């Protein structure tokens, strides 16, 4: 049973790998159901920003570097919006233990982000996120153009540089992708 499955997959992979050689293709966001803070189902294919760039940041309440990253960006978020029109989606992977704390925490910290709840890590898995924080930049066509894992003080500077290029429609595929 395993073998049949593997064979089918291998053929698919091989053929797909082959067909990819014709040109570098950017990946679009997968369509996964998560929830917004109203409790409503939200499909991740609806993540959009009228042709302007989007940041998707995976975080959790127990992840100190994630909180540091989102707090740091919060301080400069208005400037980023003025310059690039960016919208940040903060995707919490907190499970039932602390997902009820996400809304009051986001408000308590005065964050202006769009917040999504990915309680069983379905979106995280579909985006191949290993460790958090893991941050993606999406261009105006909804394609993933840049991603980075971990956060250190000053890491937001590189992100802003990339963002400015993406907002202008420049290619960032050579910028430490």
């Amino acid at each position: 049973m395993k073998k049949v499955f593997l064979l089918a997959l291998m053929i698919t992979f091989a053929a797909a790998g082959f067909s990819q050689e014709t040109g570098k293709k950017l990946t679009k966001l997968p369509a996964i159901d998560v929830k917004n803070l109203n409790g409503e189902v939200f499909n991740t294919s609806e993540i959009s920003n009228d042709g302007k760039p989007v940041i998707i940041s995976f975080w959790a309440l127990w992840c100190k570097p994630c909180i540091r990253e989102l707090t740091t960006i919060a301080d400069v978020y208005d400037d980023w919006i003025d310059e690039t029109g960016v919208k940040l989606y903060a995707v919490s992977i907190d499970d039932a233990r602390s997902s009820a704390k996400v809304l009051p925490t986001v408000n308590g910290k005065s964050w202006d982000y769009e917040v999504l709840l990915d309680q069983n890590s379905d979106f995280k898995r579909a985006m191949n996120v290993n460790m958090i924080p893991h941050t993606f930049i999406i261009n105006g066509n909804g394609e993933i153009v840049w991603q980075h894992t971990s956060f250190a003080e000053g890491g937001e500077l590189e992100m802003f540089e990339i963002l400015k290029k993406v907002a202008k429609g420049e290619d960032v595929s050579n910028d430490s992708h």
Partner: protein
Amino acid sequence: MKNNKKKLILLFCILSVSYFFSLETKAQGILSGGSIHGNFQMDAQLYVEDSVINAPDVSEDMLMNGFSNLIYTNGKFTAGLRYEVYLNPMLGYDYRLKGSGIPYRFASFKSDDFEITVGNFYEQFGSGLVLRSYEEWNLGIDNSIDGINIKFKPYKGVTIKGVYGNQRYYWEKSKGIIRGIDGEVFVNDLFTGLAEMKTKITLGGSMVSVFQENDPSLMLNLPLNVAAFAGRMNINRGKVNFMAEYANKINDPESLNNFIYKNGEALLVSGSYSQKGLGIMFSAKRIDNMVYKSDRKEIGNSLDVNFLPPLTKQHVYSLATMYPYATQPNGEMGYQAQVIYTIPKKSKLGGRYGTTISVNYSQVNSIDKQKIDTIPIGEYGTKGYTSDFFKFGDIVYNKDFNIEISRKLNKKWKAILAYTNLAYNIEVVEGHAGEPMVYADIFILDITHKFTPTKALRLEYQQLFTKQDEGDWLAAILEFTIAPKWFLSISDQYNYGNPHSDKKIHYYMAAMGYTKGTSRIALSYGRQREGLVCVGGVCRVVPASNGLTLTISSSF
């Protein structure tokens, strides 16, 4: 014969999914325009024997855990697999993981209102009180279900999910079969008059049943199908949010409840009020006899069908995680409250950048248990006990008061000050019979200084005071980072207050890491103290070790 039939069915599924897809894209065919992505991680440790901390001599010298996910997507079609390797499993992971293979593979087809997955999948109903399959690499937990998962949205705002399959059990599968159905309605979408209403209401309900064959060796009249039901609601109106879920499980004699015939119950309630700069949250729960496994004789962390979240703060600083609370599924009752307030920017108290204060308190007790007639509580093969739903039990399992103040002082300095006071029933939570309740005070100071826009030094100083268990500890970490690529750190944890003078031990550690995009390599060398690693209230015991650890991870 049976196997052949399975093969045929699977092949049929794959082909029909492919067929569906090729119909959609007509001339394009299934193989063009797709993409492959995935991730990879390897954790390996070279062990050094260290008799001072009881780190064992590892005969392989080196142990390694690794995995890689590969996912192929093409429009509405997705297929994927995960290869895992444990040669041999690292200390603290279950030895039954030894070996390598593909324990996870799936294919799925998705349209706007219909989704079907065959193979392994992860699913959660509501908050997971009756069904949650998930994976947690750091704990070695993966209870994915192998079978069929269907999701269907017949109307806008209505989602129906169904699951059918066996659970993963290391390199095998559960004997029990899980069947479940869940429905959720976003009420505002159902009636046109409600669409614009500010109050948003979500209602949901689930039903799960686990079948397992009789076990004559137990000499009990066992229920072969164990059913569980749950109902939930979420109400949101702007600043206010309220959520509740109640679950009930029919009598389910099993190893972990000493084979009693008693129904199980769980209630989870939480409410919050929040506005810009202020968040208030309160939650409460009650759990009674709610172990739910796909094998009644399983006693470890495996084969959990449901998930019972602990309502305590998940601490992040190392000494504050010394006494982590884990849910007691056989019975507990508790509550938690939390307030987060940001003193506004540019105010006298708040300073130029504002100051955030977070206060949290939680308490968990046992539940009330009364004898039925003269039968001892929880006796094998009986109805167990009765319990008053609204009465707290007398035994304290955990109390945790903590406060955290964080403030950015200027462009170069940031500081976090934290204090935790906890009472921890080590006898119940960790099973250390006869040990007294641990009362501990923990102080933490976390300062970051930026030298240049991308170079920063962070100092973490922690002190834990207790008269019980291993006595007082102090811990310090010095971490230097060059964004976005490098980090270097040295740390020490020192058990200076241990009552035994030969156990006043230093746990030194040096670590470094390099990140480029999504690839990360980290190396550390030093001593790791024995302790519990917990995620979501499920814990794994990490034995003491000494040596060199390497972690490589990447996603693409």
